């Protein structure tokens, strides 16, 4: 009876170890998985981090619900390239680029720094989850 119990305990232990191992694997997978931000999120880090601010994240999905592509990419002159637009806070306050809407009249004003400058420090300029990023240029080499 005792012998059988001990075997049972051993089996239980093995099972527990297996379970822990699987859990550990799952956790490492979750931690190791890359960023899962939304398709088309653009990180802009031309000047921000050099000036001591977090990089900017522009979310395409949020803006395209409200405005057609044409408004920014034709009327406001945004080029179709992440980091390809020379955007500075002076221009924004002057009403160019983001400042055309983010002026406190159409959308919240430039005073809310942290709403745009919200990326993790050190995030390079990129279009998140873009095909070019996944296929051609490794993320570590500053895929855009």
């Amino acid at each position: 009876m005792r012998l059988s119990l001990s075997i049972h305990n051993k089996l239980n232990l093995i099972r527990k170890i297996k379970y822990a191992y699987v859990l550990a694997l799952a956790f490492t997978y979750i931690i190791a998985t890359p960023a899962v931000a939304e398709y088309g999120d653009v990180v802009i880090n031309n000047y921000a981090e050099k000036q001591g601010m977090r990089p900017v994240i522009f979310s395409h999905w949020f803006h395209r619900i409200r405005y057609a592509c044409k408004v920014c990419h034709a009327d406001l002159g945004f080029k179709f390239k992440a980091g390809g637009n020379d955007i500075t806070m002076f221009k924004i306050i002057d009403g160019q680029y983001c400042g055309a809407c983010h002026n406190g009249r159409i959308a919240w004003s430039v005073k809310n720094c942290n709403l745009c400058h919200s990326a993790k420090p050190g995030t390079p300029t990129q279009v998140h989850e873009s095909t070019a990023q996944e296929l051609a240029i490794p993320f570590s080499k500053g895929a855009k």
Partner: protein
Amino acid sequence: MFLYFVFSFAVPPGVVAADSQQVKKNQVQKKPSSTNIESVASSPETYQPPALTYQPEEMSNILSSSNSFNRLLKISRRHQPPTEDGIHDPDNDGTKILQAPLEAFANLPKTPSDLGNGIDWVRAVDERFISPRWDIDDPTEQPLVMDMNIIRVPKGSIPNELFPHRQHTMWLDCSNCHPAIFIPKKGANQISMAANLLGQKCGVCHGKVSFPFSECKRCHSQPKKELVQKGARQ
């Protein structure tokens, strides 16, 4: 050929057939008991299928999880709120104020492939789920939609590609594409999938913001007529 003969002598086909018949008989004999147990254990009212996030639809009726391998290697965690999405800084106060994608996507029509955002943006506009402004100030201004389809014939056996102007002009202005990206003239544009994948031509938007290139058939949607005709002749 020689090997075939050797194998055919080594294993006479009659033996294999008899063996398989026996196995089948055994299975038939065993079956009734196992079905009884299953029917008791999983009556349709009490059984609730496990909530697996990325189970393909045709698999949902199969109860065992033995074939639940993530065949498409899809990331199971998508549409995360900004605080958990990996690129927003969770320590930043502003991150917590930003809208979560799922909050916005809840009522929008989805694509069957679920690639990219997984949202059918064109249908969302067509069926008035959203009405993105065409002008920065004037909410009444309507886009100048041009309905003209262009069919391109690619090399090889891949189906022909249909470019609909309508779906593009409801979002974009002519000047966005012409003449910098595409010369507005028949046969003047050399487009290759290699260029597209590297972010040129169609890849300026597709694969970044609009639906990605893994949705082949949304562009390559027209059957190749020549191939069909050839097949009929033969």
